[in-house]
């Protein structure tokens, strides 16, 4: 994937002489000390990020951590005090005002926490705004606006005013307005924080849905860990104006960079972040059909397990055999095929733990995990599901005997 946005040592300081403060931070003075001594507020300090084309990049932090300040640097609503911001390899900090206007008109659009709608304009002319200031002809911009109003599911509301719509609908207008410009980059500043939980969940899913179709590069700000991990391909965690960790949700949960992040992710709903792949155990033993009962029994005894998956040559699952059935079958001179149980629940490797819980409860055998080619890549016991919800390191659990 190519890099779309690159931030290099971006700092934003508020106050009468912001540049003068940079050396003080370099000497290691804290945000509070600088505020007390110089009356300057450090919004963001030394943020370096690398955002890929087409990814949903989430910046997460508590209020006051500088995340809203940072996102406003991406389209220079805040001009960084120091550092460079490259969009498609061009440093936009160095742009003059007409170049900047062009980038804002064509490449970046923003969605705001409190929607930022123009209350004196109808929904249609709100959505048209970005096109209007680019002097797109009336007919054409109407058509584009209507298309985007339809995408966000507000068809029929185009002649209403923002105050006649609910919060969720207003944010859809905000989204449609940003999409109408057909930007490469979508900046979203806590877009769903002002909405109630039900609507928020709905909007999150819809955003992912729209993203799947349109493949924008999205920079998304939130203070909600669950939201961040749900929609983010990668997440940056901010604290006191600095980026403290960047990684995929799984990476951050599995190895939080410091106590602050551990505290932050403490109440994350892990079942919605971890997938089957993250909690499964790679099998030590797999038995092929033609290996026969003796081999199966030997494998189980050697590995100290009570059941084993039976696969064909392509590692496609055939069934499972337990140690009891195998010994009984051997006594009765049966073949492996006769004692094979095909009643195995199969799960995809990217299924969330949340969805595995009921399956694990119902199945009397371990769950078999398969990849895209339907090859068996691991198994999951009930205890693994539980461990996935609680422990930091799933694989440390020793109890993988059924």
């Amino acid at each position, binding site marked *: 994937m190519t890099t779309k946005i690159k931030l290099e040592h971006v700092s934003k300081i508020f106050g009468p002489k912001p540049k003068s403060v940079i050396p003080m931070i370099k000497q290691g003075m804290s945000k509070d000390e600088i505020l007390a001594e110089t009356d300057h507020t450090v919004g963001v300090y030394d943020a370096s990020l690398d955002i890929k084309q087409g990814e949903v990049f989430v910046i997460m932090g508590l209020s006051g951590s500088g995340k809203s300040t940072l996102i406003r640097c991406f389209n220079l609503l805040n001009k960084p005090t120091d550092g460079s911001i490259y969009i498609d390899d061009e440093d936009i900090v160095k742009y003059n005002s007409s170049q900047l*206007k062009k980038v804002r008109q064509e490449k970046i659009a923003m969605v705001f926490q409190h929607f930022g709608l*123009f209350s004196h304009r109808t929904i249609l002319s709100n959505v048209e705004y970005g096109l209007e200031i680019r002097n797109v002809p009336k007919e054409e911009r109407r058509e584009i606006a209507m298309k985007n109003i339809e995408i966000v599911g507000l068809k029929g509301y185009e002649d209403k005013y923002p105050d006649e719509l609910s919060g969720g609908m207003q944010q859809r207008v905000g989204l449609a307005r940003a999409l109408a410009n057909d930007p490469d980059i979508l900046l979203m500043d806590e877009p769903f924080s002002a909405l109630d939980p039900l609507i928020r969940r709905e909007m999150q899913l819809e955003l992912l849905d729209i993203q799947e179709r349109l493949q924008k590069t999205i920079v998304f700000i939130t203070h909600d860990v669950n939201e961040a991990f749900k929609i983010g391909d990668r997440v940056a965690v901010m604290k006191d104006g600095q980026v403290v960790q960047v990684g995929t949700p799984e990476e951050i949960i599995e190895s939080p960079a410091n106590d602050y992040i551990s505290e932050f992710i403490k109440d994350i709903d892990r079942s919605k972040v971890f997938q089957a792949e993250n909690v499964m155990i790679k099998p030590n033993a797999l038995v092929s059909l033609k290996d026969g009962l003796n081999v199966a029994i030997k494998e189980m005894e050697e590995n100290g397990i009570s059941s084993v998956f039976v696969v064909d040559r392509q590692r496609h699952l055939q069934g499972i055999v337990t140690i009891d059935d195998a010994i009984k079958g051997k006594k009765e001179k049966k073949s492996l095929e006769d004692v094979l149980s095909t009643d195995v629940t199969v799960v995809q490797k990217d299924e969330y733990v949340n969805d595995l819980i009921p399956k694990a409860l119902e199945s009397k055998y371990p769950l078999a995990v398969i990849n895209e080619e339907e090859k068996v890549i691991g198994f999951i016991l009930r205890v693994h599901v539980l461990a996935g919800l609680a422990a930091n390191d799933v694989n440390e659990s020793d109890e993988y005997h059924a």
Partner: protein
Amino acid sequence: MGAFPDISTSIGDYVDSFVSFIDTTFEGFFDFIYLVASRTINGIDDFLMFLPWWLFIVLIFLLGWYFKTVVAGVLYSVFIFLIGTFGLWEDMMTTIAIILTAVIICLIIGIPIGVWMAFSSRFSLVTRPILDAMQTMPSFVYLIPAIFFFGLGNVSAIFATLIYALPPVIRLTELAIREVDQEVIESAQSFGSSRWQMLRKIQLPQALPTIMAGVNQTTMMALAMVVIASMVGASGLGEQVLVSINRIDIALGFEAGISIVFLAVIIDRITNGVANKFQKHRGVS
């Protein structure tokens, strides 16, 4: 003793010679203004007098109905009819013409100044005390330079009225533009609006309800000034009030006075109604 020592600064004299200086130096300029202002007043006055009396009453009813309620419309037309029965129809029209002219000039001067103040804190800082002075100086004082520049008559009245009625529209324009929601401004910026597009498409429309409140205040102050301005020869209802004082004519005084009250109520309610219409749909952030 408590007497003040014999020190005198005669600032008044300086102001006097300053005003004379301006008067002689910019004579052509003042003549031009005189011409424009008197033409405007006479034009509006002639137009109002050209309207059949019943049509004017119907117009007032329609305005009241549209911006307020049917009852209000009926009430306002009754007021206007009553003023007619006092024999003050023509005076009322002249008064309306003076007020309209003053308000139009106030808006033409006041809104750009207000916008500038909103954009430049330094300009705002300088302008504010001047606005305070304009509002607190006894309004009679403005009549003196007015006579100097424009002689006796309606134009002097307009000049004095302007100085007195200008501050509210300037102040409220500044306030309105400054108070436009920050996120709305940011979102307009994020789409790459130019400064002019921002002002025209976002800030002014968003500010309009508050600016209209300023227009309402300015109009009411202009009306209040009408009586005072009659001392420099403004015609209209104010002149009748002045005449009644000189003659100690209670009947005329009451009729002219109550006519001004009627006019005040109508103008206030209608401009207020206009402001409320604009307010609709602008409640959300």
